[in-house]
């Protein structure tokens, strides 16, 4: 059931409402997401500080990401013109 756990972790990292519901009642929220008993038990012991910081860090990364590949390609084209 690792794929199901990854999917649920992804939702925990991305979605504030999912995270809030989970932190209020981890067992119920994880079970409702269809995770098996082993994963539910693992999530009950989750590193709450880490979850908060990871979610914020991932959000910051997503916010900073969009322009990168466009800039990289623009520079490459300029360099390409210089080298021709």
């Amino acid at each position, binding site marked *: 059931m690792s794929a199901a756990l990854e999917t649920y972790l992804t939702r925990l990292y991305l979605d504030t409402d999912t995270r809030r519901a989970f932190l209020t009642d981890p067992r119920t929220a994880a079970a409702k997401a269809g995770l098996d008993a082993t994963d539910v038990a693992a999530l009950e012991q989750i590193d709450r500080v880490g979850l908060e910081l990871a979610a914020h860090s*991932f959000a910051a990364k997503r916010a900073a990401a969009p322009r990168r590949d466009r800039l990289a390609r623009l520079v490459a084209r300029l360099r390409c013109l210089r080298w021709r």
Partner: protein
Amino acid sequence: MRGHDRVGLGWRPELAAGILGHLDRIDVVEVIADDWVGAGRRALRAVRTLARQVPVVLHGVSLGLASAAPVETRRLDGLARVVDAVGPEAWSEHLAFVRGGGLEIGHLAAPPRRTATLAGLAANVARARAVVGAAPALENVATLIEPPGSDRDETTWLADAVAATGSALLLDLHNLHANARNFGFDASAALGRLPLDRVDMVHLAGGHWITARDGQRRLLDDHRHDVPDPVYALLMELAARAPQPLTVLLERDGDYPALEHLLGELDRARAALARGRAERAA
């Protein structure tokens, strides 16, 4: 096989001119593969031109190999196209998952360290090897959260990942340092438990401390700060323990200082390698 250690820098648009102007002090350049997936032939030709001037390695950030879910074929095909066009010495990816249920996390998430993830990783690496033509070196990731659902510690996970895939290890020493600080283990002792004979590339970077609402602090690997002293110490230790030549790459992803400052960090890396090699020879 290479007979000597090398030290290089991650290619970033902001650093491009400086890198090209200082190739006499940069042995190797690491290019982010994902920046070029979907790029036109002209842009890819520019990277190939770079690869003719200096050894280039490609670094992937979005395959999500360490996952129970299979990597999509279109992502592997896109990477294969870049590898084919550039002709790098090697390529690498992370021991991370980056998506789930069709949603993109937007960065590297540490996976549950357990057998099911290992099986998915091995299958994904085998497919990557088949599509791309070479297996990636696998990089340990930094994490702010103890990966839920894990049944083994980080060093065991890394050793198991290398054994399950047959891949080389790209050892990010700042990631190891950050995880050690965040989760209370000794980075030096952890280094001693890793399969160091499988390390071929090394990443160096920096980070900063962040604070949670309850006041607890964790070290974030942000690539926006200088490499801290303990990471150079780990590099020296690695060079003292590992017999094979190492390719050491500095990663910087923002708050860029003058290139001379980054070259100074490369010099410090060379000095750490030299001290480690001297210790090994003694």
